[in-house]
């Protein structure tokens, strides 16, 4: 079942001189299995929005339904909500705390009061999913891992709770290009293997363009655009919102004006289609 958000408003420090409206009439429906990107300038409300989805910020004005949980109900089962919606914050590796990688990953499932055996299975599965070798690093201190490994270990901690909906707030920030690619490949794998819904906040328009199906653009606390990725970057002047055009979208937009339509979004896909478009003509 999908995530449905209707007429969501939120004000920080209400009824004080510091009151600041962070969300203004936000409406969004996210379907099962979707991979949606959320973009927008700093302070546009992206993080405030996603923190509503697992009840970290309590709903004060509007409607939110996550699967069968209605956040407007008087009594909300937050434990259930939080195992349903997994949240990976910015720089999640700063939240690693246990002595060993395995103990750290076990923290979530243990809190869900699962039996010890089930916890162990989940830890192993999560490690495997993020591509970390249990034998090699399971007993290591998380602080002995490399930057990219630490990030993946932190994500494993969330995956071990088997969330149906995974929210990631700038999951690739601060990683080198290879580390970024690993995280994005991991997200594709999670989606394929677990059939999870993925909601990703990112400031990197190239990675948004190459990976998500649909994009919601936050501007000053409200969703200004919500459309399929390709359509957004071809139709909307996103530079006006302090964002930038993905490199491949720039090239495709120019080519479409001379009637050459390219469908792919990665460098390799675009390359192959350009070669094909050139076809029999002499290069």
């Amino acid at each position, binding site marked *: 079942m999908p995530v449905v958000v209707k007429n969501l408003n939120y004000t920080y420090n209400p009824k004080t001189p510091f009151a600041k409206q962070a969300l203004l009439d936000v409406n969004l429906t996210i379907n099962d299995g979707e991979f949606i990107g959320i973009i927008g300038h*700093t302070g546009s409300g992206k993080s405030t929005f996603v923190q509503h989805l697992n009840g970290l910020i309590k709903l004060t004005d509007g409607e939110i339904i996550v699967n069968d949980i209605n956040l407007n109900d008087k009594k909300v089962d937050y434990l259930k909500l939080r195992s349903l919606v997994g949240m990976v914050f910015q720089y999640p590796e700063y939240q690693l705390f246990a002595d060993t990688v395995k103990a750290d990953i076990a923290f979530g499932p243990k809190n869900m009061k699962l039996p010890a055996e089930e916890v162990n299975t989940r830890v192993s599965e999560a490690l495997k999913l993020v591509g970390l070798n249990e034998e090699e690093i399971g007993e290591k201190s998380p602080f002995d891992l*490399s930057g990219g490994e630490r990030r993946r270990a932190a994500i494993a901690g969330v995956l071990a709770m088997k969330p149906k909906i995974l929210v990631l707030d700038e999951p690739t920030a*601060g990683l*080198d290009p*290879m580390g970024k*690619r690993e995280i994005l490949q991991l997200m594709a794998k999670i989606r394929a293997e677990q059939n999870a819904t993925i909601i990703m906040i990112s*400031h990197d328009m190239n990675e948004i363009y190459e990976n998500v199906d649909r994009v919601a653009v936050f501007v000053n606390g409200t969703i200004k655009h919500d459309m399929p990725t390709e359509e957004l970057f071809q139709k909307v002047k996103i530079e006006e919102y302090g964002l930038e055009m993905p490199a491949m979208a720039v090239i495709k937009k120019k080519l479409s004006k001379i009637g050459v339509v390219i469908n792919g979004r990665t460098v390799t896909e675009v390359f192959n289609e350009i070669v094909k478009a050139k076809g029999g003509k002499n290069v």
Partner: protein
Amino acid sequence: MNEAIKITDMTYFYRGYDDSGLPVITKGVENVSLDIFQGEFVALVGHNGSGKSTLAKLLNALLLPRSGKIEVFGMDTSDKKNLFEIRKSVGMVFQNPDNQMVASIVKEDVAFGPENIGIPQKEIVTRVNDALDAVGMAEYADRSPHKLSGGQKQRIAIAGALAIQPKVLVLDESTAMLDPLGRREVIEIAKKLNKEKNMTIILITHFMEEVLYSDRVIVLNDGEIAMNGSPKDIFRREAELNKIGLRVPRAVELARKLNSEGFEIDPDITDEKVLGDKLCRLL
């Protein structure tokens, strides 16, 4: 050109202890020899853990070489009596803008540096005003830094470094946490300081697109210098870059692929707009 920084056969390693209390040595940088000239704009790239930040910290004597030598304007950083002058010569701005704010009003935050080095009050005022002017934040002098955007906060952090009147400015992944507009703001300021004030800029980044603004790129791999050349020279060594976890900007990747496929396209194109226009003429 005068050397701003002269590094000779420098090695630094971290000393630590493993779980059983035995000493462990972790490589930081090894056998690095490098000259950086006054007025140069140098980009420093490398995978996570390649030694970029270690090198940055060695530049202003936050770390001291275990062997070899580093001289900043002829001053050996290992000589304690040079410390004061070295720290004044090399300003640093780090990744997280929120960790670098020390005061609750912008101008006081910028004044923190000059106050610490005992600049007379009258001159502090001038320096603060000049520094804020240089980063285009003069109108925010009396505001609270906490209410600024990420890019604005980093500009204040840069102003704080400028108030010491350094000759070298090190930006250690200062754009990593920013949105596209914030990244552009920081890069523009760095370019301006380099052009107008002949300030030496050392930009550490994971965004290969940002490398394009530099005169010279230093690529670190496992603590050693793997490449040293102009952005064009570096991008031509795409396969080697990929091997050490880096990748060229997408437009460069596409231009190079098309060129080797036989297209009449300059493999050194770096701008997607130029590449798009060129393709429109070819297809």
